[in-house]
């Protein structure tokens, strides 16, 4: 089947594989929160039921049980035993109703911001996360790669200073770096705000005051991610560059007496491939990656939303965020696989050989 279209077959193969992975990921996302305490409703009830009459408590509990799909529901009503207690749904039935709801785009209801839907909370938060992460990752990637390639090619004194610095930068846990930035720039020198995505007395609107305030609040979080991302990229590019410098085609090019810029161009092109996949992957982990940075700066993105959800045992919210993170990572990986199929001649050759069987 599809023998004459190796590329299409490759794409379908990878697509099928990622679908299986997706199903497993959804199953994990469904099952793990039910692992420690078998009934999330009990935890929520413990937090919210104080000061309510026993009637109200029961009503509330049944409402939650229904929302979580923990009890059997028929025609919108809870199926009851003879003594009036709700019939429990089996784990398989729970899973089916969970998957059904996910496909409808219904990730449940947030317990903190009741009755706001989880999906709406996520929709509010995601733009902030993307605005913070996307430019940071791209700039960090470009700057890091250029510096790394230079270090690999020049070696000598530049490399000897540059390499330990970027190693130290990338081994500095990024959240630690963020805290140091806050302390130095926001507390000691007091020249940048310590927290928030915009001044507290503003409401997000399309106005100059709002944008300038947002830009002002953007500086510290940006640098806390940027420098470390650039350092990590530079290290990767440096070792790739050194590896490529030892290969035969570079030696050959040098013997031929090609111009230095030409050789660097060849070198860059070949060392670039793993870096490109690295870029796609870090774009995929973007949503989940800023969790702690956002927490330190109290930045109003998804990380902060998830953090408050964790602090309040807001299970539907946590599950919604983790599902979103997983889906983004899966999509990024799938894209990388397809890209490599087109860009890497070795994979292409493998596909052509595979034609015969």
């Amino acid at each position, binding site marked *: 089947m599809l023998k004459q279209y190796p590329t299409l077959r490759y794409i379908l193969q990878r697509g099928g594989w990622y679908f299986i*992975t997706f199903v497993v990921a959804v199953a*994990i996302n469904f099952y793990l929160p039910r692992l*420690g305490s078998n009934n999330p409703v009990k935890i929520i009830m413990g937090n919210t039921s104080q000061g309510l009459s026993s009637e109200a408590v029961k009503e509330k509990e049944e409402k939650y049980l229904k929302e979580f799909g923990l009890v059997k529901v028929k025609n919108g009503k809870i199926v009851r035993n003879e003594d009036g207690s709700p019939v429990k749904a089996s784990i398989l039935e729970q899973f089916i109703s969970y998957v059904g709801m996910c496909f409808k785009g219904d990730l449940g209801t947030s317990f903190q911001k009741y009755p706001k839907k989880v999906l709406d909370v996520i929709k509010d938060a995601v733009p902030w996360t993307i605005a913070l992460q996307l430019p940071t990752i791209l700039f960090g990637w470009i700057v890091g790669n250029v510096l790394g390639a230079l270090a690999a090619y020049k070696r000598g004194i530049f490399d000897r200073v540059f390499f330990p610095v970027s*190693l130290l930068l*990338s081994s500095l846990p990024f959240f*630690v770096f963020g805290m140091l930035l806050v*302390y130095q720039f926001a507390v000691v020198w007091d020249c940048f705000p310590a927290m928030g995505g915009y001044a507290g007395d503003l409401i997000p609107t399309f106005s100059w005051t709002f944008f300038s305030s947002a830009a002002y609040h953007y500086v510290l979080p940006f640098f806390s991610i940027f420098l470390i991302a650039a350092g990590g990229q530079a290290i990767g590019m440096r070792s790739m560059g050194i590896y490529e410098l030892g290969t035969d085609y570079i030696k050959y090019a040098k013997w031929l007496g090609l111009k230095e810029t030409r050789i660097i161009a060849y070198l860059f092109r070949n060392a670039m491939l793993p870096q490109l996949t690295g870029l796609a992957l870090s774009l995929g982990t973007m949503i989940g990656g800023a969790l702690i940075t956002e927490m330190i700066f109290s930045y109003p993105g998804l990380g902060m939303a998830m953090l408050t959800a964790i602090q309040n045992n807001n299970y539907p919210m946590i599950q919604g965020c983790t599902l979103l993170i*997983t889906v983004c990572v899966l999509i990024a*990986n799938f894209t990388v696989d397809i890209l490599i199929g087109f860009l890497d001649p070795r994979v292409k050759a493998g596909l052509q050989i595979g034609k015969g069987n």
Partner: protein
Amino acid sequence: MKQFLSLFKSPMFVIGFSLFIGTLLLALLGPLVFNITTERVGVQYAPPSGKYWFGCDDLGRDYVSLLIKGLQASLYVGFLAGIIATTLGTLLGIYGGFKGGLVDDIINMVTNLFIVIPSIVIIILISASFSEGRSLTLIAVIIGMTAWTWSARAVRAQSSALKSKDHISLAKMNGANTFAVITLHILPYLASYVFMVFILQVATGILTEAAISMIGLGPLDTVSLGTILNQAKNNGALSDGIWWAFMPATVIITIVVFALYLINTSAEGVFNPRLRK
């Protein structure tokens, strides 16, 4: 063994190794030198003084004690998670790569599956579901169980390349069983590689624990460097400029991780001749 001794010729390795031994000694011998107590000894956020070198936290506890306990906890998590992840990854990787066939396919599939599903998601979900009785050991086990995948993939690639070497065929002809071939003829070749994987896994374990604790899902039974930072942030010490609440802990984490990275990078340079120049 010889190749491990040659590590000491690399200045980078010596620096990293001494830094790491230094932190290890601080964690092990600290309790003998300092009087470790988690009782209230001073006022809230008492500044550093001759008696309490790094001041006190929001509950008036001595930071030197907390930091030493935290360092012990972080190293414990790092080593436990590192040992679990490296052992699992190495065994599965070698076995799959050496056996080939269906066993290899299954192991490979599971590995690839869990490489793609972000481990931080799994760690958050499990930690969040254990809202009571979340111990340091549990966190280390969770980290170890989610971090083995990439070492399995890397080791598998190495061992399947070794599979077709002559000395392996010879050993098989002599009637050596799978276990003997793996332990006597494959593992020694991978020793330097597994060592590097282990070092990285320890660093990952320490960083992951700190990150998890930072978002408030840390151990409930002890202090760790991550929980110290979490409290500094939550109680407003960071925005109030109380530097002794977070600076020493950040410096310690950075030193440990930097030391481990130095060891790993220098080992790469020694074991992989191509990087030498």
